[in-house]
């Protein structure tokens, strides 16, 4: 099926759009993109507005863990895809940390060839159902799309690449069993430590080369932060399980309940495998270091989200408890803070507040997350810093003492430094405080690997190929770069698995058994 003007469901072009001169489309396009005889001209494409992601109603969803974004319908997806101008020199792929051939897969969607789209997508990205949901596309692929920068058309909004990625991934998971052709066994063994986004991506890449891949996971189920960190309403766990299952069916082995540094050590694994990829993340919570932090009702975001997400405390029949706070303060302004505060709303908090010491402009969370939180009734106490957690005689939290801040001169990060407003102290009455101000390196693995060079924050030092100071031991994701995003970790997993493959090609097999 192709799209012509009559099939378009997009809103009509606004006068503003017609006034805007559109550049003539370039004649040369990469050969792999099919030339559609009925192709809609770019002039017309520029009049199509970005399609809106259907969402669950905000009032309803603040009480349920069902996914917020509902996904595009096939009609909307095709319209969205047809907004792509099919640039001769596309920038979107350059903005993708795992290098998905975005124009090619979007083109297939435009043509209605979803299987073709899925093949291209999965070829570049082992976890498209995940990234289609949680990537900050606005600063990556979509940030590079000329429809948001130089050729704005009707609305100046980039092609919804993330929406389309999710659409194709979900379609494929229902309609296809896309497994790459199994490669002949290489006879080489690779251990991957950690089954989060970096580890799973590397597993998918390395198994394609025919290597014998074993992933070690400390928890009872693989997925890492995708399972314990990101809530169900943003990334249904079923999606993660399906993507893991696909890797297992390709031959990836997973050993749960294996804590490297305790159950096994890194040097021990290094002896048993031809190469090791360390992708354990930055799992240690950072606390505020203010009085009262050990009161009952104070959680690290890690603990709060793990109880709810991995352990299923949100379910009626959940066996793992979590406190259902009525008035909840979440300290921090990143995506994890948004996940926590939106979770608190869903667990029944009448008042759920973000306490952040800078202004709205500096909130590190994705705009979409902030927007969703606002829609769901989350309140923002901006330019506010916590001073002390207040408790009662029974040891329960009763409030968070804060003070107001104002923005001063720019600091080392380039952001204006928040400075306290004298005499502005006040107590926010609450029964739960969730600390979401960041994470740091966990020394459990690294402290049992004396030959592994670390920087002063405990992160693993690697060379440009991702190799550490221990030959044959590679590292990537948050344990190298510090707390970052799912997709950057996946980018590392993909890039470094190529280094690992190259390393295996130039070294003799050492592993036994």
């Amino acid at each position, binding site marked *: 099926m192709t799209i012509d003007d009559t099939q378009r469901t997009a809103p009509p072009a606004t006068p503003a759009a017609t006034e805007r001169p559109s550049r003539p489309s370039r004649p040369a396009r990469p050969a792999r993109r099919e030339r559609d005889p009925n192709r809609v001209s770019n002039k017309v494409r520029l009049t199509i507005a970005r399609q809106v992601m259907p969402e669950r109603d905000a009032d309803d969803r603040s009480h349920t863990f069902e996914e917020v974004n509902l996904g595009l319908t096939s009609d909307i997806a095709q319209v969205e895809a047809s907004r792509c101008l099919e640039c001769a020199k596309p920038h979107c792929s350059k903005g993708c940390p795992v290098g998905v051939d975005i124009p090619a897969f979007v083109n297939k969607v435009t043509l209605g060839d979803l299987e073709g789209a899925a093949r291209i997508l999965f070829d570049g990205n082992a976890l498209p159902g995940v990234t289609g949901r949680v990537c900050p596309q606005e600063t990556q692929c979509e940030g590079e799309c000329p429809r948001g920068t130089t050729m704005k058309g009707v609305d100046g909004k980039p092609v919804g690449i993330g929406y389309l990625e999710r659409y194709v991934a979900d379609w494929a998971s229902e309609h296809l069993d896309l497994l790459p052709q199994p490669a002949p066994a290489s006879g080489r063994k690779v251990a991957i430590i950690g089954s989060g986004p970096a580890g799973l991506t590397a597993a998918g890449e390395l198994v394609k080369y025919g290597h014998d891949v074993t992933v070690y996971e400390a928890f009872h189920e693989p997925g890492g932060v995708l399972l314990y960190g990101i809530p169900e309403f943003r990334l249904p766990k079923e999606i993660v399980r399906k993507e893991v299952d696909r890797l297992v069916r390709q031959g990836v082995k997973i050993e749960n309940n294996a804590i490297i540094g305790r159950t096994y050590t890194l040097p021990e694994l290094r002896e048993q495998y031809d190469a090791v990829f360390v992708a354990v993340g930055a799992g240690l919570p950072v606390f505020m270091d203010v009085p009262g932090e*050990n009161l009952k009702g104070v959680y690290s975001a890690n603990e709060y989200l*793990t109880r709810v997400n991995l352990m299923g405390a949100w379910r009626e029949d959940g066996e793992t408890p979590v*406190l259902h706070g009525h008035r909840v303060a979440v300290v921090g302004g990143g995506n994890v803070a948004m996940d926590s505060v939106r979770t608190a709303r869903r667990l029944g908090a009448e008042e759920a507040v973000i306490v952040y010491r800078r202004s709205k402009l500096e909130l590190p969370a994705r705009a979409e997350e902030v927007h969703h939180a606002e829609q769901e009734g989350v309140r923002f106490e901006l330019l506010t810093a916590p001073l002390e957690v207040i408790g009662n005689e029974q040891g329960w939290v009763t409030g968070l003492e804060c003070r107001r801040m104002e923005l001063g001169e720019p600091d080392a990060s380039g952001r204006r430094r928040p400075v306290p407003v004298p005499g502005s102290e006040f107590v926010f009455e609450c029964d739960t405080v969730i600390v979401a101000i960041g994470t740091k390196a966990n020394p459990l693995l690294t402290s049992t690997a004396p030959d592994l060079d670390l920087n002063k924050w405990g992160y693993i030092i690697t060379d440009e190929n991702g190799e550490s100071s221990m030959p044959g031991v590679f590292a990537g994701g948050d344990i190298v770069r510090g707390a970052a995003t799912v997709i950057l970790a996946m980018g590392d997993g993909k890039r470094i698995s190529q280094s690992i493959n190259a390393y295996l090609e130039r070294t003799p097999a050492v592993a036994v058994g």
Partner: protein
Amino acid sequence: MNVIRDKTKLSPNVTRLVVDAPRIAQVRRPGQFVIVRRADGAERIPLTITDVDGEAGTITLVIQSVGKSTYDLVELEVGEGIQDIAGPLGKPTDLLEAGHAVCVGGGVGTAVIWPIAQALAKAGVRVTSVIGGRSREWVILENELQTTGNVVVCTDDGSYGRKGFVTQALADVLGNEQVDEVYAVGPVPMMRACAEVTRPLGVKTTVSLNSIMLDGTGMCGGCRVSIDGASQYACVDGPEFDGHAVDFASLSDRLTTYREFEQEALARRLACAPS
């Protein structure tokens, strides 16, 4: 799946399970623990590894039935399995190298003391154990501990051994003999009392803390305890700490965080499936 090879009831609410866990049996050292998850959907709970058999590839867990999860665990029969066992976790015990150690165990804490006493005796340290229970039937592992040295048994009601608390017996040992270190494990008030007995005498006292945990790897921070005023994690920095530095009040407070939830869950379970 970790198959249960043996099951023994040690006291009215304490059960010993011997479970397959070959890798853990191979690398575990005294003082370490595991986190077990009985089945899908079940809680993750920390349990001290009481003993291991490296050849058989088994570990021994001693479980006190206090809530739904522990009731469910001890209901498993020989041949059935525990879905997940992760470990060994925590730092191994910092064992006294020579001299005289007193190992104090209260209730199920005796099962935590047993591997420590065993390791100390094996290293040539003289061991005196002081163990207690409410009454005779609640005293556990007396015979095992006797293989490591002298054992003083106390019961609250005097039905067996001496009448009274383990702290009194500990004070007597300290009064009569040179003691180089005390290891005390049991309910929080007992550990606190032991630490108060030894504090004026300046005898090093190690306690093992059972704070609330999820992952056991330092990731959640839920097990944080205040040690000399600074937060430490029982799962990775402990579970054993200097008893003179522990803020026991905060610890016992934090242990009550989910009491209401736990009581409801247990009541529901007992109502549904009497056993």
